């Protein structure tokens, strides 16, 4: 089984990016933001991808982008497809909104609430998106952003016990296994 036939069929109707085949039954496509909704609808209603597995984000801080991943599952075909949408990072931080898909899959509202809290990506139309999700009384920048220094925050906030040693696992094991540096 391969995702190529599906990709060719999608490509005929939508201006989409390259196909990344992870496994025969799992592939990712980078899609333009304007095409996302149409593609999701098409996949859900025509191609059998009825289940939204997850909606998550990646912070590509070096490339100044946020990546949203919409992972869909086709129960009958036992295959998954992930749609990647790239957002301009700086604009998102400044509050640029992203379109909500809670009307396609109600569960998306929960994911969007989490993304709002953990990455600061705003989905203004999503129900309850501004309520606390996991964090209570959070004051810093959203903690999943790569420019948030968790170690520094933890040391400043949580009164670490003195005497703790941390080692780089790779270096430590190298010194243990090859003491003469071979």
């Amino acid at each position, binding site marked *: 089984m391969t995702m190529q036939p599906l990709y060719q069929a999608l490509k005929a109707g939508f201006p989409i990016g390259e196909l990344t085949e992870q496994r025969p039954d799992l592939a990712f496509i980078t899609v333009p933001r304007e095409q996302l909704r149409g593609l999701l609808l098409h996949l859900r209603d025509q191609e059998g991808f009825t289940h939204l597995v997850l909606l998550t984000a990646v912070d590509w801080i070096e490339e100044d982008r946020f990546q949203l991943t919409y992972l869909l599952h086709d129960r009958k075909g036992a295959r998954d497809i992930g749609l990647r949408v790239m957002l301009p990072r700086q604009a998102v931080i400044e509050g640029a909104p992203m379109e909500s898909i809670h009307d396609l899959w109600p569960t998306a509202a929960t994911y969007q609430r989490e993304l709002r809290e953990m990455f600061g990506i705003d989905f203004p139309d999503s129900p309850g998106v501004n309520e606390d999700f*996991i964090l*209570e009384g959070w004051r810093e920048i959203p903690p999943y952003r790569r420019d948030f220094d968790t*170690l520094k925050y933890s040391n400043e906030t949580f009164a670490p016990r003195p005497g703790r040693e941390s080692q780089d696992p790779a270096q430590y094991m190298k010194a243990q296994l090859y003491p003469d540096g071979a």
Partner: protein
Amino acid sequence: MKQELEKRWVKGPDGVDFEVEPLRDYYCEAPPTVMPAAYSKIIEGLFNWARAESLWILGFGTGCGAIEMRPLMTPRFDAYRYGIQWRPTPRQSNLFVISGYLSVKTLKRVIRSYEQMPNPKYVVGLGSCTINGGMYFDSYNTITRLDEYLPVDVYITGCMPRPEALLAGFEELKRIIRAGKGEGANQYAERFDWYKANQKRVIHDWDMPDYNW
């Protein structure tokens, strides 16, 4: 402040309006007090022996360590033969086992539960997370040192400690109580302001009374 905690007017079932101020009406505002020892050393010793033999654990699993409680409760390790048993509510228990990592959000619930437990009460910190943060030492949301927020009687090391280690820890706790050193509740009352200041430094949305008795 949560809406249900704010002062408001309520219409009673008999049609009479009355004012409700939840923080004052539903909770006791008085801070905890130090419980003095019994009048005679022999009597206090008897009390301590009795306390050591009835450890009632609050069934509150804060982290992954809660999984170690199940083999302890069940026939294989059977902690009940040591006079240790689990209770569902804070009002019925006197031993709080903080089982593993403690997030700030859970800490708030832990404090509320701890304060509702009757004196004398004891705290056991389970696993390296309660001692120095363990593998969550750099987490944005996990406390690294339990004794900043609650008085801890015994720490049990390991990630996770085996049920045997827990049993050894409980035996150690019994020795401490018999020696009259299980004074966590009194410590909490004595240094109440210090503990409250530490708790409020990490719990930013403090929406409960200072003492939840």
